[in-house]
């Protein structure tokens, strides 16, 4: 337990010490999106009945920021310690595979949540979305961050260089988050792209998360919960088996 707690705490401290880049910067970015998009689109679209576009956008941006930062935390921590060699300091001690897995994952979830909270607080300047079902909000926030934390771990273990990780981020994570309904309701898309969106797990994270705020969603929140929960299980099993086998970490 002490081993897990120490690694968890170290991972938290790692991002907190450079909080300007890891927390403040993503909050500012989300704020920029909010400022620009709500100005441009506020009068033109109303994706959900009775909800202003700005209010609609806030949960989407929160989720996007949370996902990106949860991913960034595990992936950058792992690749950095791999490239510099300082990973030996966590490989030499008797940490169990599970301690290793859960400490990195949970610390990344914490960063995601801190950023998400930051975005929501600053967004209050613009608008205040309702909080219809807080429990749904919390569950989707946790699961969404969890998925991305685990995906970041897989990417960090797999990548040998920073540019490989950047490719993973630019060609997988970015398209998945942008094409998931952060800025729009997928009902406003042509039917073909609506179909495609249904294969994107990030769509379910955002749709379920938004349901928690407004009580309205594109698909049934239970379906979203199942898809998101199932994705997390699969990815966690993959990451766990990578750690257990020592893939690219213990040669």
């Amino acid at each position, binding site marked *: 337990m002490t081993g897990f707690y120490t*690694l968890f705490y170290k991972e938290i401290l790692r991002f907190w010490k450079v909080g300007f880049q890891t927390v403040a910067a993503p909050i500012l970015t989300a704020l920029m999106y909010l400022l620009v998009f709500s100005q441009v689109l506020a009068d033109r679209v109303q994706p959900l009945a009775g909800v202003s576009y700005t209010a609609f956008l806030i949960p989407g941006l929160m989720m996007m920021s949370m996902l990106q930062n949860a991913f960034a935390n595990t992936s950058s921590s792992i690749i950095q310690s791999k490239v*510099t060699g300082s990973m030996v300091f966590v490989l030499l001690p008797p940490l169990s595979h599970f301690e290793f897995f859960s400490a990195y994952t949970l610390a990344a979830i914490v960063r995601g949540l801190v950023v998400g909270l930051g975005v929501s607080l600053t967004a209050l300047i613009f608008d205040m979305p309702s909080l219809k079902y807080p429990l749904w909000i919390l569950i989707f926030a946790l699961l969404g961050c969890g998925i991305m934390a685990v995906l970041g771990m897989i990417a960090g273990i797999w990548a040998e260089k920073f540019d490989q990780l950047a490719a993973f981020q630019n060609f997988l994570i970015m398209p998945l988050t942008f094409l998931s309904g952060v800025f729009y309701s997928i009902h406003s898309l042509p039917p073909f792209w609506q179909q495609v969106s249904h294969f994107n797990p990030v769509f379910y994270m955002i749709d379920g998360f938004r349901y928690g705020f407004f009580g309205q969603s594109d698909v049934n929140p239970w379906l979203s919960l199942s898809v998101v929960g199932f994705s997390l299980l699969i990815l966690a099993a993959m990451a766990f088996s990578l750690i257990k086998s020592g893939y690219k970490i213990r*040669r």
Partner: protein
Amino acid sequence: MSAITFDHVSKQFGDFTALNDISFRVEEGDFFALLGPNGAGKTTLISILAGLSKASQGHTRVMGYDVSSDYRQARRAVGIVPQELVFDPFFTVRETLRFQSGYFGLKNNGAWIDDILENLGLTSKADANMRTLSGGMKRRVMVAQALVHKPPVIVLDEPTAGVDVELRQTLWAFIRSLNQAGHTIVLTTHYLEEAQTLCNRIAMLKQGRLLALENKEQIMSRGAARTALIKLTTGQWPAALQSLLLRERDNGFEIKLADCNALEHILMTLRQAGLTLKDIEIAQADLEDIFVQMMSA
């Protein structure tokens, strides 16, 4: 029970065999040197011991615990100082050591951490960020990190390569005291005189094979043996002793000396030939000569 057991350990990287059927033991309380030229496989062997690398064949045990099936116990029993200078730039020296203790499951390790800092001359740097330390200081922190959990077995992979004299002395004094307190020490080094003065047992590795494993005395008495430089007041080297002569230098005759008893016979022969001894110098072969001789064999 041996402190470390290598049992038919081999390691391949693709087609390349880095370790070829290595078997030996390090006993509890040993101060053990692992010698060999660059690329011999020393670091690979230590990585297998540490669980950083997996052997292709064979078994490795630390204090009786298998490094793969009993990895948690095995890792608790050993402290490793890796060869490469690495550090986590986010933290101070003390944070680094607190975290390392925590990973080993130790919560209140402050007193021992202070002890290590003191013994390694790091006390004044305790709250400095790792980034700001010199290479030698970073190396000391790596040694400290390996010791936080008071491991019965301590392994240092070329800890003094490229490190200042002061650190070498502080470090060896501390390591020696740990050895006297019962810790088993294994080190690899390029400075052979370090192995010679510190260690009681020596293994030599070359191209992934174990060439020799002996007590220091045994290894020192092997091979090159001793030489003597004999200076005479006048006269020529007697024909009877011609076979021993290696060369003439510094107005004297350098000869092979199998052991000290052989000297008696030589002196007698010289006396019988009517020659008077002016000076005699006996040179002990050092580990370096033996090492070079074995490695080029």
